[in-house]
């Protein structure tokens, strides 16, 4: 993608551009495309709307997204830990194409933390017994 001027601030408009471009790549990605397609089932419009709300909540503290991403990801058939790294690479690249370095870094840092957290929740869940130990 060619962008004449990179975006230097986090804004709702920038998030919309990021989400649109990123998921355009995801849809044709050989690793991620089929996994997403199984869940989204062609209804990309509502999914992109949800993702805009999510990133708006995370980057602009807008409270627009309210959801439960851990159970949502637990329901995804065929999801594997290495897909998160692949997702992060693709997301990071897209951020660089759209945003100035500092803004791209801010998105990447958030994405990396969230991905790590989802990975832990999906593949290395806390032993429920340890969570009920008393102090």
């Amino acid at each position, binding site marked *: 993608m060619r962008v004449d001027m990179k975006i230097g601030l986090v804004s709702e408009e920038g998030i919309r551009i990021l989400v649109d471009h990123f998921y355009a790549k995801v849809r044709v990605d050989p690793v991620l495309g089929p996994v997403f397609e199984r869940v989204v089932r062609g209804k990309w419009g509502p999914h992109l709307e949800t993702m805009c709300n999510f990133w708006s909540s995370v980057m602009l503290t807008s409270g627009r997204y309210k959801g439960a991403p*851990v159970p949502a990801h637990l329901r995804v058939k065929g999801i594997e830990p290495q897909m998160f790294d692949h997702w992060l690479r693709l997301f990071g690249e897209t951020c660089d194409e759209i945003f100035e370095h500092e803004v791209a870094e801010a998105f990447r840092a958030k994405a990396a933390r969230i991905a790590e957290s989802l990975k832990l929740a999906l593949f290395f*869940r806390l032993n429920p017994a340890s*969570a009920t130990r008393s102090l």
Partner: protein
Amino acid sequence: MTYVVTDNCIKCKYMDCVEVCPVDCFYEGDNMLVIHPDECIDCGVCEPECPAEAISPDGDQHLEKWLRLNAEYALIWPNITIKREPPADAKEFDGEPNKLESYFSPQPGRGD
């Protein structure tokens, strides 16, 4: 990794965090909130919102007991996603050390 609510929330319970949390992972006790560690996605949005600076990432070793407390009570207390008025005397307790020993209540809060 998760964020955890720590000592200074006790008796302050400002609740600004619950409005910004994208995944609704706060649970309400009588005089403090906790984060459900399996639901928190580590986005960090809540940390700077807390006027009492009571929310921290769980990476630090000394937060181990707080992680256990958060995990334990998140299973028992009701979910809270809508901010209410904080306790009238919240400011008087803001910054007081070792509130866990002095004031912590295991009773559930009202929730939403």
